[in-house]
């Protein structure tokens, strides 16, 4: 019954002597939803690039529809109906939705003339397959991330996709949007389209797939029906050891000083009448759907979207936070969600990135900053946060996601904030680094820092927080002690209207 669509047989791929894939064989059947899991550096991306024809393996063959390819080119991949949706969705922001969807058919491989009308027809047909309604004449850059994702899927379908490969496609989506996406993948399965889903988020992996493939250090360590595979087994397969993500933090004692008190703060269109307290040494987890006000609240506390009503007090002293300089002056640090664009100078060295926050403190007697001082600061934090790098002078862009995130953390921690706000601290970070980063956050809290963690990742929040605050439509829907809440009742609260 299960008919294979593509088989990768005994694939071996090396880069300058480093083995990225070692004798990996994978088969994807027609209409199957397959999940490819693995840590950063496990060979997932390499495998996908082999499948797309971008990398040519040193050894092994690719078989599509019974035809064995000795060398598989990108053109072969497109001809075989393999479509790839990358993290950035590969859309052209300045072109209309219709053009984006019809681009392959009309522009890339089309004739000389181009017809707007035909583009619209092609787009409508593809969009109707996933039952998604959107203005096809709007530029793709004006869509929300979730809409772009669906447009990217429609574009793949317009090219007669038989296999859609989604590389970390859910990273930017909120929980509800992910659920919609999963429903669409279900639907495509019934239309006979296969999906290869590459994801860090384990819940999704477990819930959607028919089949799960796990890579570790370039070898296949699991390849089996997804049914009956639970989270713990999956983590075990990915990391090769048990990573506990079931920490339950105790409530902070009521005697602890109140580090941050927010009372009745509002900002039009963002949040209204929000009040809460944050104790010294406490980690407050904040979650909510996109648009619930959780992100704007964080930006408000950091002065990027100043509040219009209400008061903020830090250690009992009422403060006014009109811009990030005010916030930093009062000891508030903010680690943004998008570390690549907001948190790091990617081409600069690790040391410079870390030292930028404390550049004034490391000046020498005549007010100059020496290379040595920067390197020392960088080295200090690299050691403290266990950032894996041979040299702090290397650019940040060469680090893995987890280590990049630690550089962002180091940058803020070096300023010794009293209150640290983190938005999605482990987005795009593999599970092992994630659990280490969360451990480090707990250590910093234990040293007296007050921490707010905003996240979509419920297991992560449960693991790290003392208390959890849920936001909905701009106000606080619930605040619970960690010990009084479980994953399932938090999920219920989240989708409740």
């Amino acid at each position, binding site marked *: 019954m299960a008919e294979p669509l593509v088989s990768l047989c005994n694939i071996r791929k090396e880069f300058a002597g480093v083995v990225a894939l070692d004798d990996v064989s994978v088969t994807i059947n027609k209409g199957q939803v397959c999940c490819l899991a693995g840590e950063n550096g496990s060979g997932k991306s390499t495998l996908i690039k082999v499948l797309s024809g971008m990398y040519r393996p040193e050894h092994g063959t690719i078989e599509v529809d019974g035809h064995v390819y000795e060398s598989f080119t*990108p*053109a072969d991949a*497109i001809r075989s109906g393999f479509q*790839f949706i*990358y993290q950035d969705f*590969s*859309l*052209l*922001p*300045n*072109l209309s939705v219709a*053009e984006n969807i019809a*681009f*392959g058919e*009309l*522009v*890339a*491989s*089309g*004739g*000389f*003339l*181009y*017809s*707007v009308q035909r583009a619209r027809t092609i787009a409508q047909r593809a969009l109707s397959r996933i039952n998604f*309604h*959107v*203005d096809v*004449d*709007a*530029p793709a850059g*004006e869509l*929300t991330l979730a809409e772009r994702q669906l447009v990217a899927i429609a574009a793949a379908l317009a090219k007669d996709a038989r296999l859609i490969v989604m590389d970390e496609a859910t990273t930017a989506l909120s929980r509800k949007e992910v659920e919609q996406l999963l429903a669409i993948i279900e639907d495509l399965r019934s239309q006979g389209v296969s999906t290869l889903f590459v994801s860090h988020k384990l819940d999704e992996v477990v819930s959607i797939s028919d089949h799960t493939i796990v890579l570790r250090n370039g070898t296949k360590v699991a390849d089996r029906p997804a049914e009956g595979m639970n989270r713990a087994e999956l983590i075990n397969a990915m990391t090769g050891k048990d990573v506990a993500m079931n920490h339950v933090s105790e409530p902070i004692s009521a005697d602890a000083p109140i580090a941050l008190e927010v009372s009745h703060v509002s900002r039009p*269109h*963002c949040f209204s009448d929000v009040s809460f307290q944050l104790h010294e040494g406490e980690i407050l987890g904040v979650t909510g759907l996109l*648009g619930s006000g959780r*992100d*704007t609240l964080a*930006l408000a506390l950091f002065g990027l*979207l100043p509040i219009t009503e209400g008061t903020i007090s830090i250690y009992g002293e009422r403060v006014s936070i009109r811009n990030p300089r005010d916030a930093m002056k009062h000891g508030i640090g903010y680690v943004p969600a998008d570390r690549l664009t907001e948190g790091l100078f990617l081409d600069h060295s690790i040391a410079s990135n870390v030292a930028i926050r404390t550049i004034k403190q490391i000046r020498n007697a005549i007010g100059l900053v020496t290379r040595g001082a920067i390197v020392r600061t960088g080295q200090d934090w690299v050691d403290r946060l266990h950032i894996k790098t041979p040299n702090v002078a290397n650019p940040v862009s060469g680090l893995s996601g987890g280590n990049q995130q630690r550089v962002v953390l180091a940058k803020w921690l070096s300023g010794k904030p009293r209150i640290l706000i983190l938005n999605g601290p482990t987005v795009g970070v593999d599970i092992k680094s994630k659990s280490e980063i969360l451990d480090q956050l707990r250590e910093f809290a234990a040293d007296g820092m007050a921490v707010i963690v905003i996240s979509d990742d419920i297991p992560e929040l449960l693991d790290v927080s003392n208390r959890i605050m849920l936001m909905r439509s701009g106000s606080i829907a619930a605040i619970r002690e960690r010990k009084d809440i479980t994953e399932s009742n938090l999920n219920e609260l989240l989708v409740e209207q």
Partner: protein
Amino acid sequence: MRTIQQRFKRTARTQEAILLLVIAIVVTLLTAANPSFMTISNIFDILRIMTVSGMMALSCLLIMISGGVDVSFPAVADAAAFAGATILLQAHFNGSGLVLFLTAIPLGMLMGAINGFFVGWFRIPTMIVTLGTQSLFYGASLYFLGGVSIFELPQGTKDLAQKALITVDSGSGTSSLGPLFLVLVIMAIGVSLLLHRTSFGRSIYALGGNEMVVERSGINIRLRYLCLYSLAGAISAIAGAANATIYRNANPVGLQGQEMGIIAAVVLGGALITGGKGSVTGTLLGVLLIAIIQNSLVLVGIPSTWQNVVIGIVLAAGIAIPAVRHLIDARNKTEVLI
């Protein structure tokens, strides 16, 4: 849905609309200050001024939409026209004035292809490549062909310069508009059709939007760049030949220094300097506005020394307005999205 569509159409058209409005205001003011502004002969003068700069702007626009900033188009125009004229004189050519264009076009395409080669194959930013090649083209033309303007152009070219497309008798004498303005109009329509009605044109916008996405969709982007830059070179060469024809001399450095003004006019016309956006209508309106100012300040008694200052102010304002609007849009959007 409808409102999103309307909003998009509105934003897409604003820059053109603003320009039209500004031109209307400027024209009204100039006419009020000096009624001779609105005479046929003056209007023809303005159109003649914008013929060559309009053609160069089209070349500049094509590259800018693809995400590059070309500064070599005056060099390509000058070198192609100068070399073309030299060849015709050496051959003692005596035919139609259009042959100067036909000779210049392949030379322009060749120079464009050199730019396209560096941009496509080595991924060097266009501005860097063309800063280099403009010196190369000027230098090569001076070295091989000499630096003396050619005033004795072939008879056919002289005849073409004197041909009139439209002749109007206005009391004090006749004014006429040459056929080269018609060439600009035809080229503008051609470029517009190319941009919107051909898959090649759409891929130019796509390259300006995100080069990597275009590459992933299986398009050979090196070849596209090569074709695009050759086309832009051909258009520049036509501009150079038109310049030599209209001003009746082939000057090896006649258009040197005009690149920034033209780039600014294209940006004024709504093209995004980072690529992906731009229209022929906007570009021509931008060029027209600059031509009006160049032509008419003297008419209203503003000394010509102030001309550059006024043009500078107009350009700065015209480029700042959309930038500020974009900033405000972005800010509003963030608040809604988050």
